[in-house]
Protein backbone atom coordinates (compact mmCIF):
# COMPACT_ATOMS: atom_id res chain seq x y z
CA UNK A 1 0.00 0.00 0.00
CA UNK A 2 1.25 3.47 -0.98
CA UNK A 3 0.80 6.84 0.62
CA UNK A 4 1.58 8.69 -2.62
CA UNK A 5 -2.08 8.98 -3.82
CA UNK A 6 -2.95 10.50 -0.46
CA UNK A 7 -0.15 12.98 -0.94
CA UNK A 8 -1.42 13.64 -4.47
CA UNK A 9 -4.89 14.31 -3.04
CA UNK A 10 -3.39 16.67 -0.47
CA UNK A 11 -1.47 18.46 -3.25
CA UNK A 12 -4.52 18.74 -5.51
CA UNK A 13 -6.65 19.99 -2.61
CA UNK A 14 -3.97 22.44 -1.72
CA UNK A 15 -3.88 23.64 -5.31
CA UNK A 16 -7.67 23.89 -5.30
CA UNK A 17 -7.44 26.20 -2.30
CA UNK A 18 -4.46 28.31 -3.30
CA UNK A 19 -4.38 28.63 -7.06
CA UNK A 20 -5.66 31.89 -8.35
CA UNK A 21 -7.82 31.13 -11.41
CA UNK A 22 -7.67 34.74 -12.59
CA UNK A 23 -3.97 34.33 -13.47
CA UNK A 24 -4.59 31.84 -16.28
CA UNK A 25 -6.59 31.92 -19.46
CA UNK A 26 -8.06 28.40 -19.17
CA UNK A 27 -10.44 26.92 -16.61
CA UNK A 28 -7.92 25.64 -14.10
CA UNK A 29 -10.59 24.69 -11.58
CA UNK A 30 -11.92 22.02 -13.91
CA UNK A 31 -8.46 20.46 -14.17
CA UNK A 32 -8.17 20.56 -10.40
CA UNK A 33 -11.52 18.81 -10.01
CA UNK A 34 -10.35 16.21 -12.55
CA UNK A 35 -7.05 15.94 -10.63
CA UNK A 36 -8.96 15.39 -7.39
CA UNK A 37 -11.02 12.59 -8.91
CA UNK A 38 -7.88 11.06 -10.40
CA UNK A 39 -6.17 11.19 -6.99
CA UNK A 40 -9.21 9.55 -5.36
CA UNK A 41 -9.24 6.98 -8.17
CA UNK A 42 -5.52 6.28 -7.58
CA UNK A 43 -6.23 5.97 -3.85
CA UNK A 44 -8.99 3.46 -4.48
CA UNK A 45 -6.84 1.65 -7.07
CA UNK A 46 -4.02 1.48 -4.56
CA UNK A 47 -6.30 0.03 -1.92
CA UNK A 48 -7.95 -2.60 -4.12
CA UNK A 49 -4.96 -3.67 -6.26
CA UNK A 50 -1.64 -4.15 -4.57
CA UNK A 51 0.83 -4.97 -7.30
CA UNK A 52 4.25 -3.63 -8.15
CA UNK A 53 3.20 -2.56 -11.66
CA UNK A 54 0.20 -0.66 -10.39
CA UNK A 55 2.35 0.88 -7.70
CA UNK A 56 4.76 2.06 -10.39
CA UNK A 57 1.87 3.42 -12.48
CA UNK A 58 0.52 5.27 -9.47
CA UNK A 59 4.00 6.62 -8.82
CA UNK A 60 4.27 7.74 -12.45
CA UNK A 61 0.96 9.57 -12.16
CA UNK A 62 2.11 11.27 -8.94
CA UNK A 63 5.43 12.21 -10.59
CA UNK A 64 3.49 13.71 -13.48
CA UNK A 65 1.62 15.83 -10.95
CA UNK A 66 4.91 16.81 -9.30
CA UNK A 67 6.37 17.66 -12.69
CA UNK A 68 3.36 19.81 -13.50
CA UNK A 69 3.68 21.65 -10.20
CA UNK A 70 7.37 22.10 -10.77
CA UNK A 71 7.11 23.32 -14.34
CA UNK A 72 3.89 25.35 -14.51
CA UNK A 73 4.04 28.86 -13.17
CA UNK A 74 0.39 28.98 -12.18
CA UNK A 75 0.84 25.97 -9.88
CA UNK A 76 3.96 27.24 -8.22
CA UNK A 77 2.13 27.93 -4.95
CA UNK A 78 2.28 24.23 -4.13
CA UNK A 79 5.99 23.94 -4.85
CA UNK A 80 7.20 24.06 -1.27
CA UNK A 81 4.57 21.51 -0.22
CA UNK A 82 5.69 19.34 -3.13
CA UNK A 83 9.36 19.62 -2.14
CA UNK A 84 8.52 18.49 1.38
CA UNK A 85 7.00 15.34 -0.09
CA UNK A 86 9.88 14.54 -2.46
CA UNK A 87 12.15 12.85 0.17
CA UNK A 88 9.41 10.46 1.04
CA UNK A 89 8.60 9.79 -2.62
CA UNK A 90 12.24 9.11 -3.41
CA UNK A 91 12.86 6.96 -0.34
CA UNK A 92 9.66 5.04 -0.96
CA UNK A 93 10.65 4.57 -4.64
CA UNK A 94 14.16 3.46 -3.64
CA UNK A 95 12.84 0.94 -1.07
CA UNK A 96 10.40 -0.49 -3.61
CA UNK A 97 13.09 -0.71 -6.27
CA UNK A 98 15.49 -2.33 -3.81
CA UNK A 99 12.74 -4.76 -2.78
CA UNK A 100 12.13 -5.54 -6.42
CA UNK A 101 15.78 -6.09 -7.23
CA UNK A 102 16.82 -7.91 -4.11
CA UNK A 103 14.13 -9.01 -1.74
CA UNK A 104 16.79 -10.55 0.52
CA UNK A 105 18.70 -7.38 0.83
CA UNK A 106 15.46 -5.57 1.45
CA UNK A 107 14.40 -8.05 4.08
CA UNK A 108 17.77 -7.83 5.77
CA UNK A 109 17.66 -4.08 5.91
CA UNK A 110 13.89 -3.73 6.05
CA UNK A 111 14.09 -1.68 9.26
CA UNK A 112 16.48 0.73 7.51
CA UNK A 113 14.06 1.21 4.62
CA UNK A 114 11.10 1.50 6.90
CA UNK A 115 12.98 4.02 9.04
CA UNK A 116 13.89 5.89 5.87
CA UNK A 117 10.23 5.92 4.82
CA UNK A 118 9.24 7.01 8.26
CA UNK A 119 11.90 9.68 8.10
CA UNK A 120 10.41 10.82 4.76
CA UNK A 121 7.00 11.06 6.38
CA UNK A 122 8.40 12.89 9.36
CA UNK A 123 10.32 15.18 7.02
CA UNK A 124 7.10 15.90 5.19
CA UNK A 125 5.26 16.48 8.47
CA UNK A 126 8.01 18.77 9.79
CA UNK A 127 8.33 20.62 6.50
CA UNK A 128 4.60 20.99 6.24
CA UNK A 129 4.51 22.35 9.74
CA UNK A 130 7.42 24.71 9.06
CA UNK A 131 5.87 25.73 5.75
CA UNK A 132 2.60 26.37 7.38
CA UNK A 133 4.08 28.59 10.06
CA UNK A 134 6.20 30.27 7.39
CA UNK A 135 3.17 30.73 5.25
CA UNK A 136 1.31 32.16 8.20
CA UNK A 137 4.13 34.50 8.93
CA UNK A 138 4.15 35.47 5.26
CA UNK A 139 0.42 35.91 5.25
CA UNK A 140 0.49 38.06 8.32
CA UNK A 141 3.35 39.97 6.74
CA UNK A 142 1.31 40.36 3.56
CA UNK A 143 -1.73 41.42 5.57
CA UNK A 144 0.44 43.91 7.35
CA UNK A 145 1.82 45.15 4.05
CA UNK A 146 -1.66 45.36 2.62
CA UNK A 147 -2.82 47.30 5.65
CA UNK A 148 0.18 49.52 5.21
CA UNK A 149 -0.61 49.96 1.56
CA UNK A 150 -4.20 50.76 2.38
CA UNK A 151 -2.99 53.20 4.96
CA UNK A 152 -0.53 54.81 2.61
CA UNK A 153 -3.23 54.93 -0.09
CA UNK A 154 -5.55 56.65 2.38
CA UNK A 155 -2.68 58.91 3.35
CA UNK A 156 -2.04 59.70 -0.29
CA UNK A 157 -5.72 60.48 -0.77
CA UNK A 158 -5.68 62.60 2.33
CA UNK A 159 -2.57 64.29 1.09
CA UNK A 160 -4.26 65.08 -2.21
CA UNK A 161 -7.31 66.35 -0.35
CA UNK A 162 -5.12 68.31 1.98
CA UNK A 163 -3.22 69.82 -0.90
CA UNK A 164 -6.47 70.82 -2.58
CA UNK A 165 -7.67 72.28 0.69
CA UNK A 166 -4.41 74.12 1.22
CA UNK A 167 -4.56 75.45 -2.32
CA UNK A 168 -8.13 76.56 -1.77
CA UNK A 169 -7.25 78.14 1.56
CA UNK A 170 -4.22 79.80 0.01
CA UNK A 171 -6.39 81.23 -2.73
CA UNK A 172 -8.86 82.45 -0.12
CA UNK A 173 -6.08 83.98 1.92
CA UNK A 174 -4.59 85.62 -1.13
CA UNK A 175 -8.00 87.02 -1.99
CA UNK A 176 -8.40 88.25 1.56
CA UNK A 177 -4.94 89.74 1.47
CA UNK A 178 -5.71 91.53 -1.75
CA UNK A 179 -9.00 92.79 -0.35
CA UNK A 180 -7.21 93.95 2.78
CA UNK A 181 -4.50 95.64 0.79
CA UNK A 182 -7.12 97.40 -1.25
CA UNK A 183 -8.96 98.45 1.89
CA UNK A 184 -5.71 99.63 3.41
CA UNK A 185 -4.90 101.69 0.34
CA UNK A 186 -8.41 103.10 0.45
CA UNK A 187 -8.03 103.90 4.14
CA UNK A 188 -4.69 105.55 3.56
CA UNK A 189 -6.25 107.65 0.83
CA UNK A 190 -9.21 108.53 3.04
CA UNK A 191 -6.86 109.34 5.90
CA UNK A 192 -4.82 111.63 3.69
CA UNK A 193 -8.03 113.28 2.53
CA UNK A 194 -9.26 113.60 6.10
CA UNK A 195 -6.00 115.10 7.26
CA UNK A 196 -6.09 117.47 4.32
CA UNK A 197 -9.69 118.48 4.95
CA UNK A 198 -9.08 118.80 8.70
CA UNK A 199 -6.06 120.96 7.99
CA UNK A 200 -8.10 123.06 5.63
CA UNK A 201 -10.97 123.30 8.10
CA UNK A 202 -8.74 124.46 10.93
CA UNK A 203 -6.90 126.82 8.62
CA UNK A 204 -10.24 128.21 7.46
CA UNK A 205 -11.38 128.75 11.03
CA UNK A 206 -8.06 130.31 11.95
CA UNK A 207 -8.30 132.56 8.91
CA UNK A 208 -11.78 133.72 9.81
CA UNK A 209 -10.75 134.22 13.42
CA UNK A 210 -7.72 136.28 12.48
CA UNK A 211 -9.76 138.31 10.02
CA UNK A 212 -12.32 139.07 12.68
CA UNK A 213 -9.67 140.25 15.12
CA UNK A 214 -7.87 142.38 12.56
CA UNK A 215 -11.06 144.02 11.35
CA UNK A 216 -11.57 146.42 14.27
CA UNK A 217 -8.05 147.88 14.45
CA UNK A 218 -8.03 148.12 10.69
CA UNK A 219 -11.28 150.08 10.75
CA UNK A 220 -9.65 152.55 13.10
CA UNK A 221 -6.68 152.93 10.79
CA UNK A 222 -8.93 153.66 7.84
CA UNK A 223 -11.30 155.92 9.72
CA UNK A 224 -8.60 157.97 11.38
CA UNK A 225 -6.75 158.32 8.09
CA UNK A 226 -9.92 159.58 6.41
CA UNK A 227 -10.83 161.98 9.16
CA UNK A 228 -7.25 163.28 9.26
CA UNK A 229 -7.43 164.08 5.55
CA UNK A 230 -10.63 166.02 6.25
CA UNK A 231 -8.99 167.85 9.15
CA UNK A 232 -5.97 168.79 7.04
CA UNK A 233 -8.32 170.10 4.40
CA UNK A 234 -10.05 172.20 7.03
CA UNK A 235 -6.70 173.41 8.31
CA UNK A 236 -5.67 174.47 4.84
CA UNK A 237 -8.84 176.41 4.08
CA UNK A 238 -9.24 177.68 7.66
CA UNK A 239 -6.42 178.92 9.86
CA UNK A 240 -3.64 178.57 7.28
CA UNK A 241 -5.39 180.79 4.79
CA UNK A 242 -4.25 183.78 6.85
CA UNK A 243 -0.54 183.05 6.56
CA UNK A 244 1.86 185.10 4.50
CA UNK A 245 2.32 183.70 0.96
CA UNK A 246 5.86 182.43 1.71
CA UNK A 247 4.94 180.52 4.82
CA UNK A 248 1.69 179.41 3.25
CA UNK A 249 3.56 177.72 0.41
CA UNK A 250 5.75 175.83 2.84
CA UNK A 251 2.79 174.90 4.98
CA UNK A 252 0.79 173.79 1.95
CA UNK A 253 3.67 171.63 0.77
CA UNK A 254 3.81 169.88 4.11
CA UNK A 255 0.06 169.54 4.26
CA UNK A 256 0.10 168.12 0.73
CA UNK A 257 2.65 165.51 1.78
CA UNK A 258 0.70 164.68 4.92
CA UNK A 259 -2.48 164.32 2.93
CA UNK A 260 -0.73 162.07 0.46
CA UNK A 261 0.66 159.94 3.29
CA UNK A 262 -2.74 159.63 4.85
CA UNK A 263 -4.20 158.68 1.50
CA UNK A 264 -1.53 155.95 1.23
CA UNK A 265 -2.39 154.75 4.73
CA UNK A 266 -6.04 154.69 3.72
CA UNK A 267 -5.33 152.96 0.40
CA UNK A 268 -3.30 150.17 1.94
CA UNK A 269 -5.72 149.96 4.83
CA UNK A 270 -8.51 149.42 2.29
CA UNK A 271 -6.41 146.77 0.59
CA UNK A 272 -5.98 144.97 3.88
CA UNK A 273 -9.69 145.39 4.44
CA UNK A 274 -10.40 143.67 1.13
CA UNK A 275 -8.27 140.74 2.18
CA UNK A 276 -9.97 140.59 5.56
CA UNK A 277 -13.35 140.52 3.86
CA UNK A 278 -12.35 137.57 1.63
CA UNK A 279 -11.06 135.83 4.70
CA UNK A 280 -14.33 136.38 6.48
CA UNK A 281 -16.19 134.76 3.62
CA UNK A 282 -14.64 131.51 4.86
CA UNK A 283 -16.76 131.66 7.96
CA UNK A 284 -19.85 132.54 5.97
CA UNK A 285 -19.68 129.32 3.97
CA UNK A 286 -22.58 126.93 4.54
CA UNK A 287 -24.80 129.72 5.80
CA UNK A 288 -26.50 129.90 2.41
CA UNK A 289 -29.61 128.05 1.40
CA UNK A 290 -29.38 125.09 -0.94
CA UNK A 291 -31.56 125.09 -4.02
CA UNK A 292 -32.07 122.65 -6.85
CA UNK A 293 -29.87 124.21 -9.47
CA UNK A 294 -29.23 123.88 -13.16
CA UNK A 295 -25.46 123.45 -12.99
CA UNK A 296 -25.05 123.89 -16.76
CA UNK A 297 -26.68 127.32 -16.66
CA UNK A 298 -24.67 128.29 -13.59
CA UNK A 299 -21.37 127.22 -15.15
CA UNK A 300 -22.19 128.98 -18.40
CA UNK A 301 -23.13 132.18 -16.59
CA UNK A 302 -19.96 132.31 -14.52
CA UNK A 303 -17.74 131.36 -17.46
CA UNK A 304 -19.03 134.41 -19.33
CA UNK A 305 -18.82 136.56 -16.21
CA UNK A 306 -15.19 135.61 -15.70
CA UNK A 307 -14.27 136.11 -19.34
CA UNK A 308 -15.90 139.53 -19.62
CA UNK A 309 -14.54 140.58 -16.25
CA UNK A 310 -11.01 139.88 -17.47
CA UNK A 311 -11.67 141.48 -20.84
CA UNK A 312 -12.81 144.62 -19.04
CA UNK A 313 -9.50 144.78 -17.17
CA UNK A 314 -7.28 143.83 -20.11
CA UNK A 315 -8.41 144.60 -23.64
CA UNK A 316 -5.62 142.50 -25.15
CA UNK A 317 -6.83 139.42 -23.34
CA UNK A 318 -8.39 136.74 -25.47
CA UNK A 319 -9.10 133.06 -25.12
CA UNK A 320 -11.41 130.55 -26.69
CA UNK A 321 -14.14 129.23 -24.43
CA UNK A 322 -15.64 125.81 -24.93
CA UNK A 323 -18.53 124.17 -23.17
CA UNK A 324 -19.45 120.50 -23.16
CA UNK A 325 -22.59 120.17 -21.09
CA UNK A 326 -24.51 116.97 -20.47
CA UNK A 327 -28.06 117.68 -21.56
CA UNK A 328 -29.58 115.24 -19.08
CA UNK A 329 -27.53 116.54 -16.13
CA UNK A 330 -29.05 115.90 -12.67
CA UNK A 331 -30.44 118.95 -10.96
CA UNK A 332 -28.67 119.02 -7.61
CA UNK A 333 -29.13 120.97 -4.39
CA UNK A 334 -26.33 123.50 -4.04
CA UNK A 335 -25.86 127.02 -2.70
CA UNK A 336 -25.79 128.77 -6.09
CA UNK A 337 -23.78 131.82 -4.97
CA UNK A 338 -21.18 129.64 -3.26
CA UNK A 339 -20.78 127.22 -6.15
CA UNK A 340 -20.73 130.27 -8.42
CA UNK A 341 -17.84 131.68 -6.43
CA UNK A 342 -15.97 128.39 -6.81
CA UNK A 343 -16.57 128.29 -10.57
CA UNK A 344 -15.69 131.96 -10.99
CA UNK A 345 -12.50 131.36 -9.11
CA UNK A 346 -11.58 128.31 -11.22
CA UNK A 347 -12.40 130.15 -14.46
CA UNK A 348 -10.38 133.20 -13.38
CA UNK A 349 -7.43 130.95 -12.57
CA UNK A 350 -7.81 129.14 -15.89
CA UNK A 351 -7.92 132.37 -17.89
CA UNK A 352 -4.99 133.70 -15.90
CA UNK A 353 -3.00 130.51 -16.64
CA UNK A 354 -3.64 130.67 -20.39
CA UNK A 355 -2.87 134.40 -20.58
CA UNK A 356 0.38 133.85 -18.67
CA UNK A 357 1.34 131.06 -21.06
CA UNK A 358 0.49 133.17 -24.08
CA UNK A 359 3.05 135.77 -23.03
CA UNK A 360 5.93 133.38 -23.79
CA UNK A 361 4.21 130.93 -26.11
CA UNK A 362 5.16 130.65 -29.79
CA UNK A 363 2.74 131.93 -32.39
CA UNK A 364 -0.09 129.53 -33.04
CA UNK A 365 -0.80 128.87 -29.38
CA UNK A 366 -4.53 129.06 -28.87
CA UNK A 367 -5.50 129.73 -25.25
CA UNK A 368 -8.45 127.52 -24.48
CA UNK A 369 -10.64 127.11 -21.42
CA UNK A 370 -13.16 124.28 -21.41
CA UNK A 371 -15.94 123.51 -18.98
CA UNK A 372 -17.72 120.17 -19.09
CA UNK A 373 -20.43 118.57 -17.01
CA UNK A 374 -21.60 115.01 -16.78
CA UNK A 375 -23.49 112.60 -14.54
CA UNK A 376 -21.28 110.16 -12.68
CA UNK A 377 -21.60 107.44 -10.09
CA UNK A 378 -19.81 107.72 -6.80
CA UNK A 379 -17.86 104.85 -5.27
CA UNK A 380 -20.82 104.05 -2.99
CA UNK A 381 -23.16 103.91 -5.97
CA UNK A 382 -24.88 107.25 -5.40
CA UNK A 383 -25.46 109.67 -8.23
CA UNK A 384 -23.26 112.70 -8.56
CA UNK A 385 -22.52 115.55 -10.90
CA UNK A 386 -19.04 116.20 -12.18
CA UNK A 387 -17.87 119.60 -13.36
CA UNK A 388 -14.54 119.76 -15.16
CA UNK A 389 -12.67 122.99 -15.78
CA UNK A 390 -9.75 122.50 -18.15
CA UNK A 391 -7.24 124.97 -19.48
CA UNK A 392 -4.19 124.54 -21.67
CA UNK A 393 -2.25 127.12 -19.70
CA UNK A 394 0.89 127.08 -17.60
CA UNK A 395 -0.06 124.12 -15.39
CA UNK A 396 0.96 123.81 -11.77
CA UNK A 397 4.42 122.59 -10.66
CA UNK A 398 4.32 119.36 -8.64
CA UNK A 399 6.28 121.03 -5.86
CA UNK A 400 3.45 123.38 -4.94
CA UNK A 401 0.53 121.05 -5.63
CA UNK A 402 -0.09 120.28 -1.97
CA UNK A 403 -0.06 123.94 -1.04
CA UNK A 404 -2.58 125.33 -3.47
CA UNK A 405 -5.55 124.87 -1.14
CA UNK A 406 -3.84 126.62 1.75
CA UNK A 407 -5.13 130.07 2.57
CA UNK A 408 -2.89 132.88 1.33
CA UNK A 409 -0.94 130.66 -0.98
CA UNK A 410 -0.70 132.43 -4.32
CA UNK A 411 1.64 132.50 -7.29
CA UNK A 412 0.25 135.76 -8.57
CA UNK A 413 2.21 139.00 -8.12
CA UNK A 414 1.55 140.95 -4.92
CA UNK A 415 -1.77 142.66 -4.94
CA UNK A 416 -3.23 140.51 -7.71
CA UNK A 417 -4.39 137.55 -5.70
CA UNK A 418 -5.27 137.03 -2.08
CA UNK A 419 -4.44 133.32 -2.13
CA UNK A 420 -7.86 132.61 -0.70
CA UNK A 421 -9.71 131.53 -3.84
CA UNK A 422 -8.86 127.84 -3.88
CA UNK A 423 -8.88 127.60 -0.10
CA UNK A 424 -12.43 128.90 -0.10
CA UNK A 425 -13.39 126.72 -3.07
CA UNK A 426 -12.11 123.71 -1.20
CA UNK A 427 -14.22 124.59 1.84
CA UNK A 428 -17.31 125.25 -0.21
CA UNK A 429 -17.07 121.96 -2.11
CA UNK A 430 -15.90 119.73 0.75
CA UNK A 431 -17.61 121.19 3.78
CA UNK A 432 -20.76 122.79 2.49
CA UNK A 433 -21.58 120.35 -0.31
CA UNK A 434 -19.96 117.10 0.80
CA UNK A 435 -18.23 116.95 -2.56
CA UNK A 436 -14.72 116.60 -3.78
CA UNK A 437 -12.33 118.76 -5.72
CA UNK A 438 -9.49 117.09 -7.56
CA UNK A 439 -6.67 118.36 -9.69
CA UNK A 440 -4.75 116.93 -12.60
CA UNK A 441 -1.99 119.00 -14.06
CA UNK A 442 1.20 118.90 -16.09
CA UNK A 443 3.45 121.88 -15.75
CA UNK A 444 3.53 123.89 -18.95
CA UNK A 445 0.77 121.77 -20.50
CA UNK A 446 -2.59 121.89 -18.83
CA UNK A 447 -4.58 121.98 -15.61
CA UNK A 448 -7.85 120.18 -14.99
CA UNK A 449 -9.95 120.81 -11.92
CA UNK A 450 -12.68 118.26 -11.34
CA UNK A 451 -15.48 118.97 -8.93
CA UNK A 452 -17.77 116.14 -7.88
CA UNK A 453 -20.93 116.97 -5.97
CA UNK A 454 -23.27 114.23 -4.79
CA UNK A 455 -26.84 114.55 -5.99
Amino acid at each position, binding site marked *: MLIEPLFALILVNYLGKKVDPSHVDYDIRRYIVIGRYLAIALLILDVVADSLAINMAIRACVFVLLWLIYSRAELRVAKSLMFSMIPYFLLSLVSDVVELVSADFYDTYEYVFESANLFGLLWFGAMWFVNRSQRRALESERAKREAEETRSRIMAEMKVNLEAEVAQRTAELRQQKEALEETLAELTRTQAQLIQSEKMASLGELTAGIAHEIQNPLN*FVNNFAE*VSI*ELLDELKTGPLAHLSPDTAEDANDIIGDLTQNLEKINLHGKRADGIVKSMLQHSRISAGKKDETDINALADEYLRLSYHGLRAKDKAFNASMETDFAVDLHRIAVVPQDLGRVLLNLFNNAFYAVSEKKKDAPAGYIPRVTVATRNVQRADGGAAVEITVRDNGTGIPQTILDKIYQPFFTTKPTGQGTGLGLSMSYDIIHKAHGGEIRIDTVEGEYTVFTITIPA
Partner: protein
Amino acid sequence: MNILVVDDESDIQPLFRQRFRKEIKNGDVVLDFALSGEEAVRYLASGESEVVLILSDVNMPGMSGLELLRHIRESHGTAPPFVMMITAYGDETNYQQSMRLGANDFLTKPLDFTLLKEKLKDLDTHG
Protein backbone atom coordinates in the same frame (compact mmCIF):
# COMPACT_ATOMS: atom_id res chain seq x y z
CA MET B 1 -29.56 166.22 18.62
CA ASN B 2 -28.28 164.27 21.54
CA ILE B 3 -26.44 161.12 20.47
CA LEU B 4 -25.17 158.42 22.84
CA VAL B 5 -22.44 156.26 21.37
CA VAL B 6 -21.91 152.94 23.16
CA ASP B 7 -18.70 151.10 22.37
CA ASP B 8 -16.04 149.44 24.51
CA GLU B 9 -13.31 150.79 22.25
CA SER B 10 -12.38 154.18 23.71
CA ASP B 11 -10.72 155.26 20.45
CA ILE B 12 -14.16 155.51 18.92
CA GLN B 13 -14.61 158.75 20.93
CA PRO B 14 -11.95 160.94 19.27
CA LEU B 15 -13.00 159.47 15.91
CA PHE B 16 -16.62 160.56 16.41
CA ARG B 17 -15.57 163.95 17.81
CA GLN B 18 -13.36 164.62 14.83
CA ARG B 19 -15.88 163.35 12.33
CA PHE B 20 -18.62 165.50 13.83
CA ARG B 21 -16.33 168.45 14.51
CA LYS B 22 -18.34 170.88 12.45
CA GLU B 23 -21.70 169.66 13.73
CA ILE B 24 -20.54 169.84 17.36
CA LYS B 25 -19.12 173.33 16.79
CA ASN B 26 -22.39 174.45 15.27
CA GLY B 27 -24.33 172.88 18.14
CA ASP B 28 -26.29 170.56 15.81
CA VAL B 29 -25.05 167.47 17.59
CA VAL B 30 -24.22 166.69 21.19
CA LEU B 31 -22.15 163.53 21.63
CA ASP B 32 -22.09 161.42 24.76
CA PHE B 33 -20.17 158.20 25.19
CA ALA B 34 -20.53 155.04 27.21
CA LEU B 35 -17.86 152.32 27.32
CA SER B 36 -20.29 149.55 28.24
CA GLY B 37 -23.91 148.59 28.19
CA GLU B 38 -24.14 149.04 31.95
CA GLU B 39 -22.74 152.56 31.72
CA ALA B 40 -25.26 153.38 28.99
CA VAL B 41 -28.13 152.11 31.17
CA ARG B 42 -26.92 154.24 34.12
CA TYR B 43 -26.57 157.24 31.88
CA LEU B 44 -30.09 156.83 30.50
CA ALA B 45 -31.51 156.32 33.99
CA SER B 46 -29.86 159.49 35.33
CA GLY B 47 -31.92 161.46 32.83
CA GLU B 48 -29.25 164.15 32.49
CA SER B 49 -30.24 164.80 28.95
CA GLU B 50 -32.86 163.61 26.54
CA VAL B 51 -31.04 161.15 24.30
CA VAL B 52 -32.57 160.99 20.85
CA LEU B 53 -30.26 158.49 19.20
CA ILE B 54 -28.29 155.60 20.56
CA LEU B 55 -25.52 154.07 18.48
CA SER B 56 -24.46 150.81 20.03
CA ASP B 57 -21.91 148.19 19.19
CA VAL B 58 -23.20 144.62 19.49
CA ASN B 59 -20.13 142.82 20.77
CA MET B 60 -19.10 144.23 24.13
CA PRO B 61 -17.86 142.59 27.29
CA GLY B 62 -20.47 142.47 30.05
CA MET B 63 -23.82 143.70 28.85
CA SER B 64 -23.95 143.26 25.11
CA GLY B 65 -25.51 145.67 22.66
CA LEU B 66 -28.44 143.30 22.23
CA GLU B 67 -29.15 143.24 25.97
CA LEU B 68 -28.92 147.00 26.06
CA LEU B 69 -31.40 147.17 23.21
CA ARG B 70 -33.80 144.84 25.02
CA HIS B 71 -33.44 146.91 28.19
CA ILE B 72 -34.18 150.16 26.37
CA ARG B 73 -37.22 148.70 24.62
CA GLU B 74 -38.56 147.33 27.91
CA SER B 75 -37.99 150.35 30.16
CA HIS B 76 -38.56 153.34 27.93
CA GLY B 77 -42.29 153.78 27.59
CA THR B 78 -42.70 157.29 26.26
CA ALA B 79 -40.63 158.84 23.52
CA PRO B 80 -38.33 155.89 22.98
CA PRO B 81 -34.92 156.82 21.57
CA PHE B 82 -33.95 155.86 18.07
CA VAL B 83 -31.51 152.94 18.25
CA MET B 84 -29.00 152.02 15.59
CA MET B 85 -26.98 148.86 16.07
CA ILE B 86 -23.47 148.55 14.79
CA THR B 87 -22.78 145.00 13.61
CA ALA B 88 -19.64 143.44 12.25
CA TYR B 89 -19.35 142.80 8.53
CA GLY B 90 -21.35 139.78 7.47
CA ASP B 91 -22.70 139.04 10.95
CA GLU B 92 -26.08 137.61 9.92
CA THR B 93 -27.12 136.24 13.32
CA ASN B 94 -26.67 139.50 15.23
CA TYR B 95 -28.38 141.39 12.44
CA GLN B 96 -31.44 139.13 12.66
CA GLN B 97 -31.51 139.28 16.44
CA SER B 98 -31.26 143.07 16.56
CA MET B 99 -34.10 143.22 14.09
CA ARG B 100 -36.29 141.05 16.35
CA LEU B 101 -35.45 143.09 19.41
CA GLY B 102 -36.61 146.27 17.71
CA ALA B 103 -33.55 148.10 16.45
CA ASN B 104 -34.44 151.05 14.22
CA ASP B 105 -31.49 150.80 11.90
CA PHE B 106 -28.16 149.19 11.30
CA LEU B 107 -24.65 150.19 10.55
CA THR B 108 -21.92 147.81 9.57
CA LYS B 109 -18.31 148.13 10.48
CA PRO B 110 -16.23 149.83 9.18
CA LEU B 111 -18.41 152.83 9.92
CA ASP B 112 -19.27 154.86 6.88
CA PHE B 113 -19.64 158.35 8.36
CA THR B 114 -21.01 159.87 5.17
CA LEU B 115 -23.85 157.34 5.30
CA LEU B 116 -24.34 157.95 9.01
CA LYS B 117 -24.59 161.70 8.48
CA GLU B 118 -27.18 161.19 5.76
CA LYS B 119 -29.23 159.01 8.08
CA LEU B 120 -29.00 161.68 10.78
CA LYS B 121 -30.23 164.27 8.32
CA ASP B 122 -33.22 162.03 7.47
CA LEU B 123 -33.89 161.51 11.16
CA ASP B 124 -33.77 165.24 11.75
CA THR B 125 -36.24 166.05 9.01
CA HIS B 126 -38.64 163.10 9.41
CA GLY B 127 -38.23 161.84 12.78
